[in-house]
């Protein structure tokens, strides 16, 4: 029973996150590109999205730092690494290039796919292939992919 409620909660949080992307306008790649285009007509909306998210997130992560267990049981899986590694920087830079090309990142890609956009489907398949290539050839020596 608890397991099923846990899965339902996962689903609900996924939907809530998707609504956040839709309401904030971030499910629209053109809006993201409008933010990334500093030299053109600039749309600062993304800053407001980040500010709203981090404001609430700070409180959430502060509360969690006082706890040792998740509500649905089990240990907390919170990354502990603090080193600024080469893969972190190179990977993030490559991610940023891809993000800048189409204005799509993983969350909005799934929302757009759910809304029935064929281009989002192609993006998600390519994204999975990119992840697999990285895993197979670049992080194969590790047991698990790095955590944020």
């Amino acid at each position, binding site marked *: 029973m608890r397991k099923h409620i846990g899965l339902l909660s996962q*689903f609900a949080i996924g*939907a*809530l*996150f*998707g609504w956040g*992307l839709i*309401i*904030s*306008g971030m*499910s629209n790649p053109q*809006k993201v590109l409008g933010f*990334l285009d*500093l030299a*053109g007509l*600039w749309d*600062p*909306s993304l800053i*407001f*999205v*980040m500010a*709203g998210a981090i*404001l*609430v*997130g700070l409180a959430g992560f502060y509360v969690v730092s006082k706890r040792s267990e*998740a*509500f*649905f049981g089990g240990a907390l*899986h*919170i990354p502990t690494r*603090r080193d600024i590694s080469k893969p*972190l*920087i*190179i*990977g*993030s830079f490559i*991610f*940023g290039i*891809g993000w*800048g090309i*189409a204005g*799509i*990142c*993983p*969350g909005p890609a799934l*929302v757009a796919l*759910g809304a029935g956009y064929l*281009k989002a489907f*192609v993006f998600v*398949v*390519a*994204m*999975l*292939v*990119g*992840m697999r*290539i990285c895993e197979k050839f670049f992080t194969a020596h590790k047991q698990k*992919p*790095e*955590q*944020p």
Partner: protein
Amino acid sequence: MHIDWLSFTPIPSLLGGMILGIAAALYVLLHGRILGISGIVSGLLHSKAGDIAWRLSLVLGLLSAPVLAALFFGIRPIVDIESDWYAILLAGLLVGFGAQYGSGCTSGHGICGLSRLSPRSLVATATFMSAGFLTVFAIRHILGA
């Protein structure tokens, strides 16, 4: 710098951002995990028993979001994808590869990482934002596409 006042949506963006923050906070409180979409999705590529169902549930929630938003609130998402197929393919590959190699994306590093004041996520976010700015500058103002 010229601000695009017609496209600028401070209030919906702030509200939507707060919803993203609520989702991320609920996720770590209830499930003890970082709400990083790329990490949750890439975990689906390995079939480890007991690890698939929760990831799939979250992904299904995200996929259902537009339909549920239309049903409950009558909101239709604006999704304007102007890139051509080749650009989409290349962008997807780079986003997938980069998120995997850099251990996170806009949600894991950007929202959750900054919310928990992680130095790694701060560096990652600054890096992918800079790369995004440079890429759009190159495409729109150097190549003129």
